[in-house]
């Protein structure tokens, strides 16, 4: 096992990794930028090195700086966490070059899986179902129509250089194919200066379901079941759960085998995730492989009892997996909510400021992975995720109730958070029924705004009591009437257009 490793990350994931190291008796080196000098990961680590300038490219993304620190501190390994350099093959290579173990898969695998088209081709070889499509060079109408007919309808025409829905068409029947191809090409040409288009089968009622993989360096690969991650905003997950409400033992078995086949095909090592798209008829297709520990890994830990971060370290140290696939069981239900400093009523724009109070909920089977504390500054430099709140219960219904309980007791003040949004989402009838797709937020929460009933009377009373207890300032408003008792009876809220007390 390693004696000392460097954690090349910040926030909750750095904290998570350091704690795993502490349990295994591994010393840790934390790196931090100027704005993170009081951060929890810095408090926890055995050694801490300042990176200076908080700009990511100068700090947590600065490969030469980090490699130099790893060498100088005699770190034997580097854990990249997620984000930042976690899926950067050059970083993994740089570690290998100086004999420091990169705690993750090989640079080659990271590189291969980072190329979405190459990854798909590799998966086809492993007989893992991929979304039928055409990504070829023949771009004349006749060839595209021929390929399109092969794929079948509905299908998606999308710009190769695309993004943001530009140059994208959903085609429901053959007679509309030609005009859609031409339309997509025109739009793509004007938006991206390139009219190359791809064709892909259009997945209706899509769900995002992924499988957790652990693979050691001795050819043992296991999967740790699925995570349902359909609830996304701007293609980013915000609520994850396991098991998936639509999963059946047969489908789980099939998808689990496909995930293992995918990992074996690329000689995957360490922890990874195979992401699938699942359609309304429970057909599944490989989307991509994430070559790192996922943000949502705690729900798998809750339902399997397996510590993924510790296994990452053991695997990287060359140890063999001691868990057999046949011994793994999924028990109960777990949900994770990602708490962000953002305003869901305003396009999910990040909110920055000082956290005047942080008080996480505590209780049985509630896990709060966070990197925040009272008086912390939320800066614009990094991802605005504040915490991951995870609840675990015997079944989905109780797990939802527990999550509502926990969200309702999570005090984060000073910035706008998505807690009210998460609460409404979890309480939504369709969510409760498990009817979720990747379009869930667009379908039900598109123009969401917080119910603005104004300040509740309880808040007004509490504020008034607080202020009169702590504010010694004297009354300064001049009252019109001489009778000192009279105005007390007549003041109140007089703004038109909102209701008063309860």
């Amino acid at each position, binding site marked *: 096992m390693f004696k000392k490793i460097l954690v090349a990350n910040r926030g909750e994931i750095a904290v998570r990794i350091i704690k795993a190291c502490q349990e295994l008796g591994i010393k840790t080196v934390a790196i931090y930028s100027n704005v993170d000098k009081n951060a929890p990961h810095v408090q926890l680590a055995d050694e801490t090195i300042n990176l200076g300038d908080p700009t990511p490219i100068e700090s947590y993304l600065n490969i030469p700086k980090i490699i130099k620190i790893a060498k100088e501190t005699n770190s034997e390994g580097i854990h990249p966490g997620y984000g930042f350099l976690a899926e950067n093959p050059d970083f993994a290579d740089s570690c290998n070059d100086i004999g420091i173990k990169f705690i993750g898969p090989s640079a080659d695998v990271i590189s291969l899986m980072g190329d979405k088209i190459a990854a798909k081709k590799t998966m086809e070889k492993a007989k893992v179902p991929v979304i039928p499509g055409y990504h070829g060079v023949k771009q004349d109408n006749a060839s595209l129509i021929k390929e399109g007919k092969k794929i079948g309808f509905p299908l998606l025409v999308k710009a190769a250089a695309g993004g943001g829905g530009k140059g994208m068409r959903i085609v429901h029947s053959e007679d509309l194919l030609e005009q859609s191809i031409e339309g997509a090409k025109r739009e793509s040409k004007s938006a991206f200066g390139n009219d190359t288009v791809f064709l892909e089968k259009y997945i209706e009622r899509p769900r995002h379901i992924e499988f957790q993989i652990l693979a050691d360096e001795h050819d043992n690969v296991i999967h740790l079941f699925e995570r349902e991650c359909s609830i996304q905003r701007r293609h980013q997950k915000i609520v994850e759960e396991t098991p998936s409400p639509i999963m059946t033992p047969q489908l789980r078995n099939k998808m689990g085998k496909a995930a293992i086949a995918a990992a074996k095909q690329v000689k995957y090592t360490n922890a990874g995730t195979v992401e699938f798209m699942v359609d309304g008829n429970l057909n599944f297709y490989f989307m991509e492989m994430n070559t790192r520990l996922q943000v949502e890994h705690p729900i798998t830990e809750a339902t399997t009892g397996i510590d993924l971060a510790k296994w990452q370290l053991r695997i990287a140290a060359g140890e063999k997996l001691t868990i057999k696939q046949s011994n793994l069981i999924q028990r109960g239900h777990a949900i994770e909510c990602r708490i962000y400093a953002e305003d869901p009523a305003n396009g999910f724009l990040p909110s920055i400021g000082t956290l005047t109070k942080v008080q996480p909920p505590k209780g049985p089977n509630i896990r709060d992975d966070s990197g925040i504390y009272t008086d912390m500054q939320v800066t614009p430099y990094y991802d605005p995720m504040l915490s991951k709140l995870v609840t675990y219960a015997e079944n989905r219904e109780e797990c939802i109730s527990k999550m509502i309980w926990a969200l309702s007791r999570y005090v984060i003040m000073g910035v706008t958070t998505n807690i009210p949004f998460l609460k409404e989402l979890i309480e939504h009838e369709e969510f409760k029924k498990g009817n979720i797709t990747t379009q869930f937020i667009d379908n039900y929460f598109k123009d969401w705004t917080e119910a603005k009933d104004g300040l509740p009377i309880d808040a*007004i009373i509490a504020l008034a009591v607080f202020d009169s207890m702590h504010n010694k300032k004297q009354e300064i408003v001049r009252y019109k009437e001489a009778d000192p008792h009279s105005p007390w009876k007549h003041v109140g809220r007089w703004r038109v257009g909102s209701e008063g007390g309860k």
Partner: protein
Amino acid sequence: MFINYEHNNHVYNVTVERRENNYYITYNNTEYKVNSVEEPVKGQLKIIIGDRVIKSVITEGDKEKYIFVDGEVFKVKPVDLTSKKKTKKKEDGDLSSPISGKVVSVKVKKGDSVKKGDVLMVIEAMKMEYLIRAPFKGKINKVNFKEKDQIEIGQITVDISKKGE
């Protein structure tokens, strides 16, 4: 004590009185007698009013306060009409109305010279009067409201320029 809280562009007027060791909160013509208040940690309050229990957490930011009650966070700005902060702001020439109400008296007209602290306008809301005072020695360029006009919070009462400018 009389307090104004602003939340989402609404102003809430509350009065607090302490009589015989009890707090009396009056809001929206209703008086609430607070039977007991516990504050084990500053800002963490448990208030009992009859059989109603209010548990809240309050923190103070630079200009605003945050209150957590019944699972929700609300951001409020105490609207303090004559505090130093407000006076300072007014030195920058901010003569916006602190409240919505009725203009009961206009003390100046275009072209008048005023001294710092002179009352320019009186605005009434409910039974109270709010005085708009000159933030500095200056000259009145324009008076935007006349007596009996309705004025909304944030509307500029008077345009004033510093003497000699």
